[in-house]
């Protein structure tokens, strides 16, 4: 079953066409990576999936309903690229507020804070935290809602390697429990951790694949190199 289905999605921002017509699906209960360089349209695509992006044409369906429809707001969680939490509230207060919006208890909020490794910093103002800690506070505010679909825009930027591994383990644990995750990244070493990969370049879908397939298609065990080979191959095709 597909958790997200995108059909002929066109998005213009100002006069610029950011997404020129995308079609793909995201399978339920898996971690799907949205990989591509900065400026390739990843964030725009994610905003369309959570229903805050004005779209020119095409359709985005999440869990069988149009993206952004009221019934989905309990079921879809979104973490923006820049941490979107209140800097003038403590980590705990932030988590408890978002918990309340999703109808969850304060206890569940505190558990979500502990889950992202911020248990010791729960009483500190978000504004006083490091960038990585803020990002995790932002993540906790989405996890607390236990959404069925979790859209994470570059959640591991600026995190130390140990924490990054821990978070990826957590993402997989969530997927095993049935959560669908759409995670964007611009570093290819994270691609290896995804079940499926969507490779985006200049708004176009270069490949809808798996890490194993990408290695085979790109004729390299190194995903970065495989990606480059696929890019070059598609470039040659375009020239022909």
């Amino acid at each position, binding site marked *: 079953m597909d958790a997200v289905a995108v059909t002929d999605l066109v998005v213009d*921002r*100002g006069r610029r066409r950011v997404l020129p017509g995308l079609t793909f699906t995201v399978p339920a209960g898996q971690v799907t990576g949205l990989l591509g360089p900065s400026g390739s349209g990843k964030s725009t695509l994610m*905003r369309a999936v*959570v*229903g*805050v*992006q*004005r*779209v020119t044409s095409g359709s985005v369906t999440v869990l069988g*309903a149009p993206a*952004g*429809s*009221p*019934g989905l*707001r*309990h079921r*879809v*969680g*979104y973490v*923006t690229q*820049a*941490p*979107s*939490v*209140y*800097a*003038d*509230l403590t980590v705990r*207060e932030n988590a408890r*507020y*978002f918990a*309340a*919006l*999703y*109808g969850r208890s304060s206890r569940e909020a505190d558990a979500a804070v502990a889950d992202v490794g911020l248990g010791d910093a729960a009483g500190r*103002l978000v504004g006083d935290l490091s960038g990585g800690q803020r990002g995790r506070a932002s993540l906790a*505010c989405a996890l607390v*809602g236990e959404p069925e679909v979790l859209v994470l825009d570059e959640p591991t930027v600026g995190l130390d390697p140990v924490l990054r591994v821990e978070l990826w383990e957590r993402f997989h644990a969530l997927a095993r429990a049935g959560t669908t995750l759409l995670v964007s990244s611009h570093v290819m070493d994270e691609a290896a951790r995804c079940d499926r990969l969507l490779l985006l370049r200049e708004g176009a879908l270069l490949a809808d694949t798996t890490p194993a397939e990408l290695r085979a298609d790109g004729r390299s065990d190194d995903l970065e190199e495989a990606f480059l080979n696929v890019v070059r191959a598609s470039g040659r095709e375009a020239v022909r």
Partner: protein
Amino acid sequence: MSTTTHLSPRLTTTTAVRVLRQLRHDHRTVAMLLVLPSLLLGLLHLLWEDLPAVPGQPGTFDRVGLTMLGVFPFVVMFLVTSIAMLRERTSGTLERLLTTPLSRLDLLLGYGLAFGLAAALQAVVTVTVATTLYDLDVAGSVWLVVLIAVVDAVLGVALGLLASAFARSEFQAVQFMPVIVLPQFFLCGLLVPREQMAGWLQAISDALPLTYAVDALREVGRSAEATGTMWTDVGVVAGAAPLALALAAATLRRRTD
């Protein structure tokens, strides 16, 4: 599936509590909110203290000072709210909130409730200081003055929320204050009595909510009993606030570029 989200008193209250918590962490803002109007009123008191009053007329401070009790909360809450809402926008929290079950009206009413409560506290402090330290003469009940101040503050909040929808930067947001507030202040009848204004200016004055707030305060100032005119005035101001909130909700777009 419904296409609209329903108002939720629980989420409105939760949001108001969150806004008040943010305020509580900012001690200087709280201190300024509570004390600043009293200090400014004190300055006006000193300014007019030794001027002889016209016999049979209320003293200038009694007239202007009382009016200011309605103007201060309006201006302050307008500014505080439009900046707070702009911060929601620039920090990305607004976009995030729009993906949660919180409805747009819940969010706006939450702000109205939070800053309305802050305004009530501010009004109690200012009215107490004005009537005790500065000997401000009010013929009617001081509680009516507090009520009018709070209704005024809520109007300021509502207009601030509406204005913030059109502000793309802090510079713009701050400049909406003179755009929205000063014309209302100039035309409310304090600087020039409304009867002496040119007809078309008076017509504009009739359409501006602050005019009614100032008129309501005058009524409380000169009659011991609450008058019908006063309640009508309060009703107009109290009606303008939800109108502005509804407009603010309508201009708050869920989908943006």
